[in-house]
């Protein structure tokens, strides 16, 4: 009996040891097995031959293509005359790459190569369970391929663009690398980091959709036109969801303003109410869908931002109040990045408007067009109520990458939602 217990204990200790050994082995084995299928993707400037950008790519089994982020290869897509693509594999071999298709909304690019890896990656469309261990692979800061273990923590809740929330470090240079489950199957693509073990991955189904589209349509004839179509479709989808929602309103000083109107719009607020030294009491509410679409190094799009300010200067003469009031609408700007190569200058109108309800406001509306993508605009709106002598309500929004129809529909919905006495 005693001997039996002893053997049982020995067996369980051995089993424990074996299983621990097995798990450690799998991460090492995983890396060893898949390292040849990981590539460093390099964007080279043709004139100097120097690296302009680097990222990570991985070879798929079927079809035999390389996947990376669009933002890694954007320069070669937008200015092929100036930049070319090259890969560097684990055997230090180099070779040419060619972009076949892109998805700017999900920041993905499909690339063809002659390189064949012994163990290419497969896609896993079933999502891991919350808390499952996944591994992010990539080449951070050109330091060599590494494996970062981390945790799958579901989908990022407050983004319109689907992203996996990965608890683990995703550093620059790892962009475009795969995130795999314990079996080595791809569940996502590294895309961004918010610092301190907070990483974001593009889910595998977005990659699957791009692959399906590629298999149906073949190599893209005009990547720029594809991007334009994707942007138009994406804004259409995002805003139709926003516009059909029943907007929750909240009391805000002398009026009512929209709150978190859909899941992916988050609101924040602040005020100086407890500070006695300020002559004007100011309450600010700020709502945004702050995830953006990368278009090029200095050009982003896809954000929505709404801002409301309620100002009150009880002890001020109306002239004093208005002289401070107007400073609060002096500096409005687009909230996406763009250079003058990307967008036209803002065209603005500014008028005092009487609303159907009889209220008055100074309204400012500015529009700029995207140079490379027809039918897409950034829009900026500002309104300051004029019906009180010592109080004011400023409502403001900026939309980036919208069509004229979307802008018009949003404007109507917004004007209907914001009200004051």
């Amino acid at each position, binding site marked *: 009996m005693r001997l039996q217990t002893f053997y049982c204990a020995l067996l369980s200790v051995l089993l424990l040891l074996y299983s621990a050994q097995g798990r450690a082995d799998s991460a090492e084995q995983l890396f060893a097995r898949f390292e040849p299928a990981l590539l460093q993707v390099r964007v080279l400037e043709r004139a100097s031959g120097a690296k302009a950008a680097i990222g990570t790519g991985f070879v798929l089994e079927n079809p035999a293509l390389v996947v990376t982020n669009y933002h890694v290869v954007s320069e070669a897509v937008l200015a092929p005359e100036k930049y070319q693509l090259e890969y560097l594999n684990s055997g230090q071999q180099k070779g040419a790459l060619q972009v076949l298709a892109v998805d700017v909304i999900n920041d993905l690019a499909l690339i063809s190569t002659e390189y064949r890896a012994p163990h290419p990656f497969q896609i896993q469309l079933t999502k891991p369970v919350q808390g499952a261990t996944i591994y992010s692979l990539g080449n951070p800061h050109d330091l060599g391929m590494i494996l970062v273990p981390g945790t799958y923590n579901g989908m990022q809740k407050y983004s319109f663009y689907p992203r996996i929330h990965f608890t683990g470090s995703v550093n620059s240079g790892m962009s475009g690398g795969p995130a795999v489950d314990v079996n080595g199957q791809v569940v996502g693509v590294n895309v961004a980091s918010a610092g301190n073990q907070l990483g974001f991955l593009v889910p595998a189904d977005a990659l699957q959709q791009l692959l399906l589209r590629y298999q149906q349509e073949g190599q893209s004839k005009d990547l720029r036109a594809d991007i334009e179509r994707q942007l138009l479709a994406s804004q259409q989808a995002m805003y139709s969801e926003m516009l059909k929602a029943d907007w929750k309103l909240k009391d805000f000083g002398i009026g009512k303003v929209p709150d978190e109107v859909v899941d992916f719009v988050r609101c924040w607020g602040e005020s100086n109410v407890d500070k006695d030294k300020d002559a004007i009491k100011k309450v600010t509410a700020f709502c945004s869908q702050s995830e953006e679409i990368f278009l090029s190094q200095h050009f982003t799009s896809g954000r929505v931002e709404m801002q409301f300010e309620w100002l009150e200067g009880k002890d001020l003469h109306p*002239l004093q109040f208005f002289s401070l009031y107007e400073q609060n609408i002096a500096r409005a700007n687009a909230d996406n990045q763009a250079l003058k190569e990307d967008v036209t200058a803002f065209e603005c109108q500014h008028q005092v408007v009487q609303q159907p309800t009889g209220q008055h406001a100074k309204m400012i509306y500015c529009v700029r067009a995207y140079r490379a993508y027809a039918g897409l605009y950034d829009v900026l709106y500002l309104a300051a109520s004029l019906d009180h002598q010592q109080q004011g309500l400023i409502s403001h929004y900026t939309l980036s990458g919208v069509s004229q129809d979307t802008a*018009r529909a949003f404007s109507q919905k917004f004007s209907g939602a914001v009200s004051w006495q």
Partner: protein
Amino acid sequence: MAVIIEVLNKQHKVIERHRFTQPRIALGRAYNNDLILYDKHVSPHHAELVLGGDGRWQLVDLASLNGSFVEPLQPLTQATGLQSGQLCWLGEQALRIYDEHHPVPAALPYNNIEQRLRRFGHPALIVLLVLFLLAEELFSLWLAAPEQNQNRWSRNLLNLPLLMLGLSLWPALLAIWAKINQHEARFLPQLGLTFAAVALMECWQALMTVLNFSLNGAAAVVWLGDIGQTALVILLLTANFYLALQISVLKKVALASGLGLLLSLQGVAVSLLFENQNNLQPQFDNSLMPLTFYLNKPVSSEEFSKDSDELFRQADEAREEPLQR
């Protein structure tokens, strides 16, 4: 026949005028001369004016050290007959000799404009203008800094006298310039004029602010504001030069206009040069005032959204234009 001798300074302005009736006039630095000169290059007994038999005055050099000259700067070697009004020099001392029948120009009537401009020097008016400017300055301080921040208020209040002093610099400069040129300084009229012009400019600015809000920041208001300012500057300079400079009216107006335009064009040039760098920032009129100051009719929401549609068309047009690098 009597002779008139004008003693001139280096700029040929008259500093003394003498009339002699005797037929021989001794000129020099010594005290026993009829006309005692004090230029150090003039000899004690330098020259003589002698009435000739033909009734003309003759200049005779008395072997002076530095010599005598007649217009056009010819050295005198012998007794030389002079024309009435002719210039002559003893050393470097210039003299102009007239006979008593030399014609003089007709009397000038009082210059109406000048008389009126001089009335700006009335102390009561100046005090009034100073009070107005101080009030205006206090008003803008009150508008901008409503916080009951004692420090800031007292600092701004201390700056006010400095501001007034700064405004007085320009009239002071004009007065000094006039004085150098041996005219009346006329400091008080210049001061009054300058303060009056600044006060007018402030009023114009206030009017433009209301107009700008009422017309929704129309470009025409900006132009009107600029043109008004320029006109006021030119008017002020013309008045200043009228009192300070002894040149023809046409020249005064031309000088004032040129200077005024230059000053305002400088502002335009700066805005033109730096406009392009800022063009990613939306340019709009942010002026806000209480609704009572809105003299225009507000547009309806429909009109506003129709105008917004127009912006998309304009942006599309701008997109078609080639990019200027």
